[in-house]
């Protein structure tokens, strides 16, 4: 079997996401150094690494929350390095946040409706949605898909933590996502909720690729086909889940508490 690295090098311009030499500095601190990653359309990949490895910064550079200090980012062949976040989202990129970033003053339904509206026309519409509004139906379906129909008219501030995490995922699946970045979606979930999360992730349509940051190896390795291991802001290893799991250097890093 080819190694993932070999398979990826053959992909080239057909990549869903292509990072070349991405570096992000915070003052003198380099949170990311010369990161080069290529992900195929529909590929599902885990990013592992200890705290401070640069995983969330990687996501922030990809979505444009923080632009990279140098390097280029291509999304389905298009150079999006200097695009504001909303332009990247409108092209089919999505993300979730490690700490739920929801709209606590609005209802579950309104949260999901906003997500659907954000990636379609009429963001500035002064007309209220009617009964047969297509986006309202889309929002209903999404609410159902993440098992929140029972609480759809409740304000988000009143939801339990697990429900907020599910809503977080629903917001990232609105519209027609082509690639999703999941930032620790299982954080703080109960075992039952974790099983539900795995079910949601594995039942995503095959053309939707994603990168998932997840500390829980049991979750991460069940929902991905490739793994990128990061350490100190650099890509440390790439490979299949089994390769990474059995790699002595990786084991050293994880078991040794993240020290070299």
């Amino acid at each position, binding site marked *: 079997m080819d190694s993932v690295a070999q398979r990826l090098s053959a992909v080239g311009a057909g990549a869903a996401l292509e990072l070349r030499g991405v570096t992000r500095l915070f003052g003198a601190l380099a949170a990311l150094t010369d990161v080069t990653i290529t992900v195929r359309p529909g590929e599902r990949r885990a990013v592992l690494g200890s705290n401070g490895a640069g995983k969330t910064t990687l996501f922030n550079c990809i*979505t444009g*929350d923080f632009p990279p200090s140098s390097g280029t980012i291509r999304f389905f062949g298009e150079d999006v390095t200097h695009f*504001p*976040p*909303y332009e990247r*989202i*409108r092209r089919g990129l*999505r*993300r979730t*946040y490690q700490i739920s*970033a*929801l*709209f*606590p*003053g*609005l209802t579950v339904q*309104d949260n999901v*409706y*906003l*997500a659907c*509206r*954000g*990636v379609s026309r*009429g*963001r*500035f*519409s*002064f*007309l*209220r*949605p009617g*009964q047969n509004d297509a986006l309202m139906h889309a929002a209903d379906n999404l609410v159902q898909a993440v098992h929140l129909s029972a609480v759809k008219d409740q304000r988000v501030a009143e939801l339990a933590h697990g429900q907020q995490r599910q809503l977080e995922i629903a*917001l990232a699946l*609105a*519209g027609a996502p082509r690639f999703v970045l999941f930032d620790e979606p299982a954080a703080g979930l109960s075992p039952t909720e974790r099983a539900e999360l795995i079910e949601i992730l594995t039942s995503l349509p095959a053309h939707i690729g994603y990168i998932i940051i997840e500390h829980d190896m049991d979750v991460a390795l069940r929902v991905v086909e490739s793994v990128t291991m990061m350490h100190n802001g650099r890509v440390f290893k790439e490979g299949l889940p089994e390769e990474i799991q059995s790699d002595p250097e990786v084991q050293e890093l994880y078991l040794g508490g993240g020290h070299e």
Partner: protein
Amino acid sequence: MSLAHDARLAVGRATEAQRAARTWPEINNPAAWAVAAILVIMPLIASSFFLIEIFATTLILGTMALSLMFLAGYGGMVSLMQLTIAGFSAYMVAVFGVSGNANISLGWPWWLAVPMALALATAFGTLGGALAVRTEGIYTIMITLAIGAAFYYFTNQNWAIFNGHTGINNVATPRFWGVNWRADIPFYYIVLAVAAFCYFAVQYVVRAPFGLALQGVRDNPRRMAALGFNVNAHRIAAYAFASFIAALAGVLQVWNYRQISPGSVSVGACIDVLIIAVVGGITRPIGPFIGALTFVLLRTFALDFLVRLGLDGNRFRLLIGLGFLAIVFWSSDGVIGLWQRWRQHQRREVSRSGRGRGHG
């Protein structure tokens, strides 16, 4: 006709009514109907002093404060320039329309001067907003206050257009269809119609995609960008909408006093609008009108009250200031916050006593 058919009809009507109630929460509120009825028959019960000096003035100030409430309550942007936009609109009505200062006023008929004033004031507010959205929190307050102060000093010193500190006097008011629309009763109804229009426009828009997205921007701008929204464009559009409301109020104000001078756009007046909105409550569009009524009543009657106590009557601001302090200390969501908590308390009492009887 079959029973089943009747039942279906009834269900259809019920959901129709429910939807209407969601769209307009006032429909199921008897207090709202009572207030609306009183406002409509007001000319029958109020003297012309009360009609204009109290109620029309309240509605005009309330509409200005409503534009601030929309930005602050739904957009999280405290703009101190809303009165300035209203004042700019008032000046433009005087400059383009007919006034006693013939060397300045262009003498356009009101139906040309008013749309021009509304358009220019909305553009002014939108430009100011475009500056202000680059900042957040206290810096937004500072920038909008700076715009307000700059406009005040500019009007004081510019004689070519704003006629310096004397301002523009004897501004003409509309007369058509044989009606003098500045006569007390017609004017009251114009003011009431505009205030009601603005109130319901805000109520409607906050449930429309634009208003929902604005609340999303207030709660979490970064996430809104990650959902595909251009956050700053949304904020600027909110300024445009609020500026149009303020501009409408400005037209009414210049017709009310028939003159406009720098005193009407002073920094103190800008802050009065903030006080009105905060005292009334910035969580709901009715708040600014309650705040305005409180403010106007105090301004009008505190003088007599203070004189009776042996104090200087001009110290009515002392009462307003104390009231403001009390509100900020004890009810950060204003008078409507106090009212809501009182209502909740009442409801809890009722349900508790009801349960008590059931167990006994």
